[in-house]
């Protein structure tokens, strides 16, 4: 099968979802889309099952934190169509007070641990996840360590301060 171009892919998605899916760009040829959490499962299902696309391989789920944005937590899906050999990246931004998003485990079993990892580090709550608990950090941890406000080291430590270069 010939490699599907990003324009064709974008056209198919916008024909189906209209303005619910926005184009964020094509960094290094990887089509990046943004959608809302209401239709994320519909978008993923469409991408997975549409015979011309077949994004059947979930490469990764992760998140990113932009503290200064109105919706600071971004959940990022990387999908790969092995049949067409093309990748797509989908982002969903969530507000701080409502970090809920439906789970993708209904589509891929492999989403289970990826979502647990995202919950563990960013506190994103995947609604409907069968077993949403911490995976790499200790169970009684209270913070979500990959958020930007979480310091890498104890901030009261002075022995590593480099006053000369201000690092």
């Amino acid at each position, binding site marked *: 099968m010939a490699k599907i171009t990003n324009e064709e892919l974008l056209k198919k998605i916008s024909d189906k979802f209209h303005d619910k899916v926005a184009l964020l760009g094509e960094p*290094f040829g*990887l089509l990046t889309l943004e959608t809302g959490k209401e239709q994320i499962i519909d978008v993923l299902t469409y991408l997975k099952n549409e015979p011309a696309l077949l994004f059947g391989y*979930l490469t990764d789920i992760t998140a990113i934190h932009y503290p200064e944005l109105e919706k600071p937590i971004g959940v990022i899906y990387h999908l790969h169509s092995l049949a067409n050999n093309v990748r797509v990246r989908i982002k969903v931004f969530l507000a701080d007070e409502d970090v809920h998003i439906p789970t993708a485990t209904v589509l891929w*079993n492999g989403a*289970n641990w990826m979502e647990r*990892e995202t919950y563990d580090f960013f506190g994103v709550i995947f609604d409907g996840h069968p077993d949403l608990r911490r995976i790499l950090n200790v169970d009684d941890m209270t913070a979500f360590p990959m958020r930007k406000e979480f310091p890498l080291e104890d901030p009261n430590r002075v022995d590593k301060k480099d006053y000369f270069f201000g690092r």
Partner: protein
Amino acid sequence: MQNHPVYTDNDPQNELSTLNLGPTHPATHGVFQNVLQLDGERIVSGVSTIGYIHRAFEKIAEHRPFYQITPLTDRMNYCSSPINNMGWHITVEKLLGIETPKRVDYLRVIIMELARISDHLICNSVLAVDTGAATGFFYVMEYREAIYEIYEEVCGSRLTTNIGRIGGFERNFNAIAFSKLRKFLKEYPGVLKEFENLTKRNRIFIDRTKDVAAVTAEDALSYSWSGPILRAAGVDYDVRAMEPYSSYEDFEFEVPVGSNGDVYNRYLVRQEEMWQSLRLIEQALVKLEKEPPDIFHADVPDFYLPPKEDVYNNMEALIYHFKIVMGEIPTPKTEVYLAVEGGNGELGFYLVNDGGRSPYRLHFRRPSFINYQMYAPMSRGMLLSDAIINMSSLNVIAGELDA
């Protein structure tokens, strides 16, 4: 929220027994735990607990300049750390738009394929040990040492290599490295063949591995498996062939594919990949003859540290050295995903950059982490001894599991 799996069973009526497999059991080859419910020797259910050696690499990476993240990648899959290093360099080069010379690409292919051989030979020979055949392990282990000696000539270290730099290598391959490489290429095929003769058609080995833990292609894809175990299930997905990096498109190699994803198929796929890796290295050596022998890095003074002699004697080099170390060179504000074919599968680097000296966010798609999540569900109904073999052939590396 119930956090811990059940460790003990106080109910006298319960006929099932609980077994803690790990965290430091020799058969698990790493620090991770499975709490298994056993009915006799058959597994009824299991819960995997991981995270024992989590070191927060993604958080640390947000505070380190790009070139200081290489040693962090070493410590993920430490059986084939050069692949992780190269994957990271190639990601940064893609972000910065650096074109590496062909000679660098070919040298990288040599190092990456050596790493793949060292990864697979450990996995397959330890699989043989777990089935009760320790001899083959000692035959091939000698050649992991030979590979480590080649790394040593190239970068000075053996296990956690920190090999290469952004843009190329820190130094050229010397004559000893090439002679050790040629010696390895001459001697290793015979040993690999001997190891194959010990195992491939061995009645005991086949009885222990054939039809054990068979996985359908649908299940493997649904669990986002990648690497040799996905190919053993019959899906011909190899990042080197699908999205060539480091000039893999210049090479001829085959992607071996298995049929039913059982342990024996995984063994066969890894075995054949080692032969293909040898083929790739030989092709790379031929191609290198046509390349200028003194080029070992791209001409990117903004990101490639100049040699120390120049830093002390040449003002321009000193300025560049200072700018690189102080991180004063602007980088593009964009995001990049790059995958390389690691020892265990698709090793992805998702790098979001905000223009500074360190990543805004760096995520590692670690194949062991994603491959391993099927382990507990697939162990259900399996004999305990088969579950051990299964774990061995998944080649789970604790460092890559936890990052």
